């Protein structure tokens, strides 16, 4: 098993573990944790897409390093991952802020609480 396969396998399993969490958990904090696990999985997947076995750092320092250009790791996925990490951070911070208010208004962290209220309103 090559390193690339290990990366791909672990990233897809992280994505599916996270998806399972989002779909089955009721606690909002746990749902947000699962979302973060999905994001980690995606980041690993993107980096794996640009992975080169025994690759070089993609920085041209001298005319010598031009010779290694075939062996260089693709830098674009890494730039994408940096951006997606920042977005993930923003989502988590914002969602946790909302969660605090959800706890204050509902008195619980269960995602079902707001549904029960709507059923009551309709009747």
């Amino acid at each position, binding site marked *: 098993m090559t390193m690339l396969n290990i990366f791909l396998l672990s990233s897809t399993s992280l*994505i599916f573990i996270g*998806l399972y969490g*989002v779909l089955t958990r009721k606690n*909002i904090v746990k*749902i*947000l944790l699962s*979302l973060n696990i*999905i*994001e980690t999985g*995606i980041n690993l*997947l*993107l980096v794996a*897409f640009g992975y080169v076995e025994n690759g070089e750092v993609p920085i041209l320092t001298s005319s010598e390093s031009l010779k290694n250009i075939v062996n260089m790791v693709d830098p*674009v*996925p890494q730039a*994408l991952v940096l*951006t*997606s990490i920042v*977005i993930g951070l*923003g*989502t988590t911070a*914002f*969602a946790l802020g*909302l*969660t605090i*208010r*959800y706890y204050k*208004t*509902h008195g619980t962290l269960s*995602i079902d*609480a*707001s549904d029960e*209220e*709507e059923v009551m309103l*309709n009747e």
Partner: protein
Amino acid sequence: MNSSLFLIIIPLMGAFIALFAKKANRLMAIVITLFMEIFSIIIYLSGKLPVSVEIGGWQPPYGINFVLTPLSVGFIILINLAAIISLFIIRGEKSYQFYSTYLVLLAASNGIVLTGDIFNFYIFSELTAFGITALIAYPKDRKSTGAAIKYLILASTAAAFLLIGIGIVYKTLGTLNIADIASKISLLDPLTLELIIILMLTGIFVELELFPFNMWVPKAYLGGTASVNVMLHGMLGTAGAYTITRILLTMFTVDGSGLLVNVNIANSVIVIALLTILVSEIAAFNEKKIKKVLAFSSMGQMGLIIFGFMIGNEQAIVGAFYLVVANFVAKTILFVLTGEFIAMSGSGNWEDMKGIGRKHPVAGLAFVIGSLSLMGVPFFAGFWGKLGLIQGAINGSAFMVVGIVIVLITAIIEGIYFLKIAHTLFLEKDSDREYLSKARVHSIVIAAILALAIIAIGVKPGLIESNINSATDEILNSTSNYIDIVFPRR
């Protein structure tokens, strides 16, 4: 045309300045949005379209580019119009958080439409999700907080799938530029292509309010205030309709002809759209809360628009564009007036609004005109949309005939529930009724002007025919109208 970057930079700068502007916030937001609307109209009329703007001078596909075509700038004009209207109908004082997030939302929805880079599209769609979540949650009560957190979770899960799709596109084609992907799409293995399209559609469908992904819609409309409803429908919904034209009908088409590469996926999207129409209209039929009625009707119209785009022949796409414009105008009227009616009667149920139409005949008439246009009655703007849709579907495959039946049946259902509301507004009397507040004149004026626009388009569809034909032409011949603009030297 480098100045088109102002469409994104100025609201972002405004969002930052709003933190310090204290009382002048609302004025600043209105000035910025008015500037953007006038600026985008100037771009549309300048005659320099279509053009590709290379940011920082880096040529695509290496750098990020913005693509300004009659289609995208037309959508920008609609989005900014909705933004202005939503600012005018804001009720009461709002703090800087409201205007700051509103300006971020404005920048991001303009960015979705302008960008020519698929990863940039992902970033902007995440930004709209943040903006609209914060705006929904702004009232700080139980309903709005629950709606906001559900939308945020759903939108970020969906965006995760979109990002996986983008990653696979980069791995297989080595590019992130929409025009570049569109020109290389035939090189892809069919199974990989299928996977990419499914992953990307999952991400987009949440924003498009389509059936299995739309449990957030009624909650969000109910939780938000009237101005946030106009933003949700007019800015986010319009940007979503644009997404369909760009991602589905430009990127994944056979030689840029407006037909989806994979017939099975095209048919499944049509089935989803028809289910959306059916489910939402039936749900709206029994609904007591007027905002929920409008939210479900909004979902149904979105399904109609996507059905029209997916049929793929010229008449249907022209019809879909008429529907985009008609739905935009009519729903804006209804949301503006609903905000007034709810404030007047103090209740969200339409049964409590007896006789408001008698007290304010102009507002009541505008409401009726908007709902007649949504039903597709002749001499109102929505008629030309449904007519084109049905003509296109007749010329399509036998499968489309089912679609025609569903469109006609749901038009009747829609007619019944809107006429029930109109009946309550006009015919039922409640003479000793005390209203909580007066209707504001400027809201009624906005609604009346938009209602006149609906009748003008309905009686004389030639008013916007040339604009719609150029947009349709852009979709049907996207190789010459989109890809060649981004890569003129190929």
